[in-house]
């Protein structure tokens, strides 16, 4: 870089929500207070690790992705723009992005057989979602996913959790590509309609 631009100021996180430990930890992190990152780890690591264990076929890869996620939070915290989404959304997007990179690097590995959406939906909602709104949204999402057909859920799961293209999903499921595309289209639109129904 020829010059080092001073960082732009994105929208702040929701500081006003007093008593929100996630927002407080995030703000501390933004002040470059290491205790902020440690608190974020305490609050989110189990949920992130559970997610990464579902996405990645080996435990050591999930550990690597978890470490990289927190390093990226620390180093890229100024990139967060409150106007573009919640803190949790931003952090989970970082984790997903990192896991996708690792999956692509380790393409030869086959996901562990027990990772499917049905088992995710069958388990009780995690109690670690600190914000009541987040808990409500997760319950709503479970409900909406439950209304899709099993095939529609499966293709969404394979695309998001295993970074599979539609062609790869068609091969995995032994179904024609056109059918897979149709399941995905209907699944996504069904999900959107359901999530937006008051």
């Amino acid at each position, binding site marked *: 870089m020829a010059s080092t631009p001073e960082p*732009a100021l994105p929208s702040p996180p929701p500081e006003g929500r007093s008593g929100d430990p996630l927002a407080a930890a995030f703000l501390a992190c933004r002040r470059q207070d290491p205790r902020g990152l440690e608190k974020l780890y305490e609050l989110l690591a189990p*949920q992130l*690790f*559970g997610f990464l264990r579902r996405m990645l076929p080996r435990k050591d890869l999930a550990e690597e992705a978890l470490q990289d996620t927190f390093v990226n939070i620390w180093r890229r915290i100024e990139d967060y723009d409150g106007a573009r989404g*919640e803190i949790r959304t931003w952090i989970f997007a970082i984790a997903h992005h990192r896991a996708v990179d690792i999956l692509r690097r380790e393409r030869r590995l086959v996901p562990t057989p027990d990772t499917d959406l049905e088992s995710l939906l069958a388990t009780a*909602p995690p109690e670690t979602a600190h914000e009541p709104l987040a808990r409500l949204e997760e319950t709503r*999402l*479970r409900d909406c996913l439950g209304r899709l057909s099993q095939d529609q859920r499966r293709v969404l799961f394979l695309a998001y959790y295993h970074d599979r293209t539609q062609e790869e999903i068609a091969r995995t499921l032994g179904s024609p590509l056109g059918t897979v595309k149709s399941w995905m289209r209907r699944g996504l639109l069904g999900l959107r309609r359901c999530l937006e129904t008051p």
Partner: protein
Amino acid sequence: MKLPEGEARELLAAEYVLGTLTPTVRRRVERWIFLHPELAESVRRWEHDFARFAALATPETPPVRCRRRLESFLKNERPRRRLTLIAAGFWRYAAPLAVAASLFLVAVLVERVRTVERPPAGIAVLVGRHGHAHWVLTMGHDRMRVVVVGRIALPPHKSYELWFEPRAGARMVPVGLLPSRGLMTARLPAAVYVRLAHAHLLAVSLEPAGGSPTGRPTGPVLATATPQAV
């Protein structure tokens, strides 16, 4: 190709976030996100929903070694901060020196204010494909100021990077990352200013978060400008 509307647009946004689009379509969507706030909003909504999708997984406590690794990372990141604290302690006790330093800083500050008030020596309006201005750059006197015109959507995990082409057909030279909203002021060494102000072309490309990993533009060029002397 036109931006699809209605359900087709919604699907495009969803598949962009899912990562199931082909590289060609993906790049096209990234251009559209830049140009169409409604698509950017759909992408933001799907990101939010898929983050909830991720949170459905049953929590699992990571091994203790993960926390230790993070603590070790933070320890290595701390020395810079400690140095600042040591310096602060030193100044607190070295009162006479601090007074002298303060006077010097006031003099520097006055000069800075006068410098900032000077008119810019160069200006560039970075314009997108449809003729809309997206960033206005004013350059000169050791500073560059960037003003974002309106609000620019930034795709997830991406950054906007500014480049200049010294002369027609020459290799692009990176300058720095641009904001997607508001205003930014950056230091601009005199040597860089001279090269920028006399550049054949300025360009903004869409790059992975943090900037191009190769030192060359890797994503689509979204806006260009010819710098003008004032």
